């Protein structure tokens, strides 16, 4: 049963409402209103300007990495290198090595060996020019869990701080970007600032990222990290061998993550975490090469995928060697 509501025509109000000022009438109130309006307009202009006040025109107009070619790319790299020289007083080289043909990187992590010493975490920080303080950014997070309960994230501890490792009854589970073959972060990114390269590395163009953090919500491994402020990186600790998509120092307000040390891997070198691990728990190589350690791991060890039910198909494999 619908309620019928009377429908009068446009009303004649019972008392006269305030009539709009006619021209010439009481300009003082007018101007006060206009001044308020102008102030508000100025305030919003300031607000808009503040957010971008430290961005030069070149930076603003810089294209997506995939569209940078030839001379334009050289100019961008030169500008970035000069900026680093000015800030840290060091000459750097920013490379743009492409993926090699016939290479699909694979990473193996032996959790029967990891002792939780965190040397990988800090080797990565050193190699990849991560911010040391405010924020402190670690691309690798090591979880301490009970052997009796297996991989039980609800009871994992990332802030373990004993005198020695490994602690009895515990095992250690480092997590970093899994370089998924079906990456949820790439799907979520609204600007295509992150994508998967041919050799499997999921990369980020730090100068294209808008810092919306959709990718961080989408990542099931907590592998992506945000530069909440300008990085604190002391002079003298800068690693000058850089890659545009890898370890060049990132600006504030963008997302960063493990890139399998793209500046090393694409030049044939092991990643920093692989090289520093004292127990040899980390294996890295070309999955397409039958002689590589990682292939041997896949063929002979019990390998498993972290959060396999999410069908991300990572290129990062955990295994038990014994």
């Amino acid at each position: 049963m619908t309620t019928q509501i009377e429908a009068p025509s446009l009303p004649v109000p019972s008392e006269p409402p305030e009539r709009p000022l006619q021209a010439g009438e009481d300009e003082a109130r007018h101007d006060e209103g206009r001044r308020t309006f102008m102030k508000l307009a100025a305030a919003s202009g300031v607000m808009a300007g503040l957010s971008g006040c430290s961005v030069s025109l070149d930076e603003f107009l810089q294209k997506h990495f995939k569209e940078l070619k030839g001379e334009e790319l050289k100019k961008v790299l030169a500008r970035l290198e000069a900026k680093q020289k000015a800030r840290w007083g060091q000459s750097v080289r920013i490379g743009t090595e492409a993926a090699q043909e016939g290479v699909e990187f694979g990473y193996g992590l032996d959790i029967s060996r990891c002792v939780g010493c965190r040397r990988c975490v800090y080797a990565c920080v050193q190699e990849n020019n991560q911010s040391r303080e405010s924020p402190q950014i670690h691309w690798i997070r090591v979880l301490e869990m009970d052997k009796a309960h297996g991989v039980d994230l609800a009871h994992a501890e990332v802030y373990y701080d004993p005198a020695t490792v490994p602690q009895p009854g515990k095992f250690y589970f480092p997590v970093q970007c899994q370089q998924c073959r079906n990456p949820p972060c790439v799907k979520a990114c609204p600007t295509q600032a992150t994508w998967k390269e041919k050799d499997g590395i999921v990369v980020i163009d730090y100068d294209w990222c808008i810092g919306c953090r959709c990718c961080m919500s989408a990542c099931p491994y907590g592998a992506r990290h945000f530069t909440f402020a300008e990085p604190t990186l002391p002079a003298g600790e800068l690693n000058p061998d850089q890659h545009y998509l890898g370890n060049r120092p990132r600006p504030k307000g963008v997302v960063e993550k493990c890139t399998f040390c793209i500046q090393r891997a694409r030049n044939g070198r092991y990643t920093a975490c692989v090289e520093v691990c004292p127990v040899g728990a980390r294996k890295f190589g070309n999955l397409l090469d039958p002689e590589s350690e990682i292939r041997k791991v896949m063929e002979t060890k019990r390998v498993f995928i972290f959060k396999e039910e999410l069908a991300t198909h990572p290129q990062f494999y955990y295994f038990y060697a014994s």
Partner: protein
Amino acid sequence: MTGILQFLKNCARQVTTGGRAYFLWLAALACAIAVGVTGYANQAQHGLIVTNIRDQVSWAFYIGNFTFLVGVAAAAVLLVIPAYVYHWGPIKEVVLLGELLAISALAMCLLFIMADMGRPDRLLHMTPIIGSPNWPRSLLTWDALVLNVYLVLNLTVVGYILYESYNRREPNKKILFPLVILSIPVSISTHTVTAFLYNGMAARPYWNASILAPRFIASAFCSGPAVMLILFQVLRKTAGIPIKDEAIRKVAELMAYAMFFNLFLLGAELFKEFYSATEHLQYTKYYWFGIGSHTALVKYAWGSLAASVAAFVIFVVPRFRENWTLLNLGCLLIWAGVYIEKGLGLVIPGFTPDTLGEIYEYQPTLTEWSIAIGVFGVGFLILTVLVKISVPILTGTFKAQEAASASH
């Protein structure tokens, strides 16, 4: 062209004229905006580290507010359906005021997004042609698309109605009707797309539930019109727009049914989580009961539920909703209840515990509060300005001069 310019000039004059209460209200809004600008200046200079957003909880207060306001924007226009179904007299007025609220809410949504972005200077990277939007895979591009379409649609309808009424012409129903009808699916789709943004994240089991999109629509529908009810009452008194008591009470009744549906969906969600009791229960448990010593949100969870149920009771019992004090109390309660449910209750538990099981308890900082206050200040300012222009046009006291109307 001169007609439009004159219209705009007259609008400006309209906005800058008013009584003491009006200017006090504007002053209060200006203060709020000033607080916001100060907060934003701090954030722009130092980066988002001045918030309590961290890697573990990477979306928080700003996005919670954004989500709530998208719901408000969507719901405001849904008054159109009952307005037509129940033959409310001043349908045009009801539709228009709803759209004004939608426009203000959308402006606030945009501002919250800008506040949350790490690099707002790079917003253009998301636009087609000059940027590289990840369309159609990224839900955020869909969200941006639908919200902008909705905004343009609302601005078009509002602008058209106002300009025609200002020039003493009846807006052409053949143009208006399709646009207004179109705004209904568009408004539902804005909030559905926003729900899908959360829903699609397999990494966050709390959101990765099919029930999320229906819950969004239900909670939007039951809370959005609350502001309208208060606005209608204010405008009845100050500008004489003839909105009948029955209309207001009908809206309250419909909100009660929407709230019932909302509570039903909540119950369904809680059953699934607590009965199946998988590891995914962690997030729901954190929100309603806390985990160990981490209980920061528990009081908000139960408070929000109490407010929602109380509002439901007030709106569903005819005797209660006929009492103006109770009705308005109900509006405040429902607004508060859904604000918490959509903000704290949706965003934070999605991240707590995080993907690696860590619990970081998030509370907004002073800067975040400042910016939120500023954004609400801007939103209410826009609403005030629009209402200040629209209502006199609709009631006939703000019209073009005879000479101006003859010039086109």
